[in-house]
């Protein structure tokens, strides 16, 4: 199986159920962009190297996630609207054990 299901609540509060590939080395930010769930230019500004917080999201399910790297930790410490569930989408690789992941996008300008 190479697709998993992810539930993503966009910045307007609308819920989307999308299929995400596990075989293309995708990350969560890229999945959001591929479905255009946030306008271009407002997400993934740095391209996915944890140097901006435009892909910040809140993880609402208790799936096992990769530990935050030093870079992600540092970026989140300078971001806005941060809470305990905050992660940078670009740092979360799509793998099969994330099937059913529930995510909410942080507001623009985070």
């Amino acid at each position, binding site marked *: 199986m190479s697709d998993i299901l992810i539930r993503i609540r966009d910045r307007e509060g609308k819920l989307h159920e999308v299929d995400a590939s596990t075989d293309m080395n995708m990350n969560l930010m890229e999945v959001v962009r591929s479905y255009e769930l946030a*306008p*271009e*230019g*407002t997400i993934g*500004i*740095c391209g996915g*190297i944890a*140097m*901006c917080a*435009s892909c910040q999201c809140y993880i609402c399910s208790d799936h096992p996630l990769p530990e935050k790297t*030093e*870079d992600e*930790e*540092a970026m989140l*410490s*300078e971001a*806005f*609207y941060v809470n305990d569930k905050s992660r940078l989408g670009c740092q979360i690789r799509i793998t099969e054990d994330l099937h059913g992941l529930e995510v909410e996008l942080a507001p623009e*300008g985070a």
Partner: protein
Amino acid sequence: MIKTDILIIGAGPTGLFAVFEAGLLQLKCHLIDALPQPGGQLAEIYPKKPIYDIPGFPEVLAGELVDNLMEQIRPFQPGFTLGERAETLEKMDDGTFVVTTSEGTRHQAPIVAIAGGLGSFEPRKPLLDNLEDYEDKGVAYMIRDPESYRGKRVLIAGGGDSALDWSIYLAEIASELILVHRRNEFRGALDSVEKVQDLKDRGKIRLLTPAEVVALEGEGALERVVVRKMTEPAEDIRVELDAFIPLFGLSPKLGPISSWGLEIEKNAIRVDNTLDYQTNIPGIYAIGDVNTYPGKLKLILCGFHEATLMCQSAYQRIHPGKKYVMKYTTVGGIHGFDGSKKEAPKAVVKTIE
């Protein structure tokens, strides 16, 4: 009034390379950028990150690529208006355009090439209720004149390079310097972190971590801020001060360009990709990440290509009807506007006896 052939808005890799291609056609360029240095995102966001998809460079640091581009275009003597944002565009009766910056600098050219990336970088503002009321009345997001902080009580918030570097700089100028950050760890050059440690040990910098500014107070101008320590949220600290400088990095915004009458789609400028990347306004082109067309990819290498075709089209507009064919640099070499010449060394023709 600054006059040139091609006025380029945005000094990122695409804008810089356009200078080279224009130079080969004997066209002069001037660049405007809101950032104080050329390079765009590469210089501002990730100078130390390697890029692997520049043709011919298996690996190159973003900062190095900018240095190389600057070196490559040097013979063509580009002009720069840095640290100013292109604000307005006017079309003149003679068909040229006048672009005026945030600082009032005026530029005139028959061709405008927008190479604006994701837009101009604007400071990220912390989420504080009455922040905007105190802008220029104690709150500043950029330090234009460090001397204006002499003898003042200054509080800097942030945990990156700019927060560290300005804390170090202003510690010697301000009467009091407080640095507030949400964590104990700072992300910056090791040297800067050590300097701040030293200044803290010598009592020149007061460090409040992990903490954040949660409110601003003052009648008419900023007088004090409320700092909340994460470890003792019940005991907020009121700090009397003259200046609050939040340094949380920059984020790009399309900004004033979006009201120039150009066709905007998905936060980008729609162009004709079947021909020359011209916009709906003849004489105005959009190249690099700032444009959009079917199949668009935001890659530096695509920006280089777009810049090249744009310059050919610009040449035709400036010299209508003039017969010309593109010349390879291996054939024509480089003839700089500074009088410099680069060309292939002549082959040696000699009889072997």
